[in-house]
């Protein structure tokens, strides 16, 4: 039996009628045509389908659309438009931290969550945070570099800000 669900996707209220077996990933991709969320394994092993569910990264392939009823979902499209990850996107671009682009959504989600909880991660902590994100193209180093550079930029911006405050 199909179910009616209501959720917030990238700040917009969405009402859909879905089969209970529909994954959140399929809802986003097929019903809402938010195709920036990718499917690489459909069993939570590759990280290509990460979205923010009520603010934390989860595998959209391991969550049913009906489970997301009443919740808030943010996809790469939403993060992009909100400007929240603009600096991450820029360092990924500068460092060429992507090739085919299929893992990029998941990498950005993991990086975004890491930096929200750890403003100064070591390279090893970054690699650990990416341990569930598969990339076949880059060899990972450029991605680690880009996240590390973003953290440095944010920290030095903060330092500048606190210096200015201190001067006042």
């Amino acid at each position, binding site marked *: 039996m199909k179910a009616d669900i209501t959720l917030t996707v990238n700040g917009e209220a969405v009402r859909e009628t879905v089969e*209970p*077996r529909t994954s959140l990933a*399929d809802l986003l991709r097929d019903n809402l045509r938010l195709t920036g969320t990718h499917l690489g394994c459909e069993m939570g092993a590759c*990280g290509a389908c990460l979205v923010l569910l009520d603010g934390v*990264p989860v595998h959209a392939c391991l*969550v049913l659309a009906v489970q997301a009823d009443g919740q808030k979902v943010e996809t790469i499209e939403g993060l992009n438009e909100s400007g929240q990850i603009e600096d991450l996107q820029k360092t990924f671009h500068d460092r060429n931290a992507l090739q085919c682009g299929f893992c990029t959504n998941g990498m950005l989600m993991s990086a975004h969550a890491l930096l929200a909880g750890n403003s100064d991660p070591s390279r090893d902590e970054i*690699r650990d945070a990416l341990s569930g994100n598969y990339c076949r193209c880059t060899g990972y180093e450029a991605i680690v570099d880009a996240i590390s550079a973003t953290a440095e930029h944010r920290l030095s911006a903060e330092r500048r800000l606190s210096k200015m405050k201190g001067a006042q």
Partner: protein
Amino acid sequence: MKSPAFDYVRAESVADAMSAYAAADGDAVYLSGGHSVMPSLALRLQAPALLIDLSNIAALSGISLDDGWLRIGAMTRHVQALNDPLIAVHAPLFAAAAPFVAHPAIRNRGTLGGSLAHADPASEFPAAAVAMQAELEIASSQGIRRVPADDFFVDIYETAIEPGEVLLAIHVPSPVAGQVIGFDEIARRRGDYAMVGAAVQAVSTDAGLEDVSIALFSVGNHPVRARKAQAALTGRAIDAAAIADAQAALEDDLNPPDDPQFPASMRLHLARVLLGRVLANLEAVA
């Protein structure tokens, strides 16, 4: 890899969940974090008529300290095992195990109760529960009972939870003075299921180790209590000789599965190496 069709209900109470299960004539699966259920559905390894979502049941959430026991609701997410201050102090082996469990996004969603109920012999939390001598609180239509972790894990993917029953919470006895713990595993890649893992808890006294509790995982069909190794350590200070005796005792404690890709001899060897390392690095918690 699309799931077969099923119906879905979000239970609001344990009674709700159990009556939905009964109404489906048992052709139902409980869904907590879903991180084991969803892949098995996508692989079409099971095709239940009904999925019963437990995530909204208040009785399954919350972490509280009560009379020397920490009650951890079954819906507690892996990430809380990593971050929760009560778990850090009162169920320290869960906190020690959590970094080894899968990856950050999985930990955001996967639940402790789900992990224990799934009872994968290679997974970390079940062994931690056994080593901490936790008790599992299970609801059935007859009422609520508590099962010691040693009796909870029955076989591969099989626990003391009977069909239709719901795991409510994990109860962990608070550490006593002198308590030490150790947790480690050997895995191919970070976050992978362990090739071999070890969870150890003991009380360090002037008379040597007491209440030694060793649970090894990925060495059998469920977490294995290494009782001979425990005995070899009891009443002794941790030194090279004691560790060597404990390692030697694993020969009798373990009967690992044999597989051309992973021979029993390799599991036994790795279990000894790992146990030695964990014992050499026990840390005080209380």
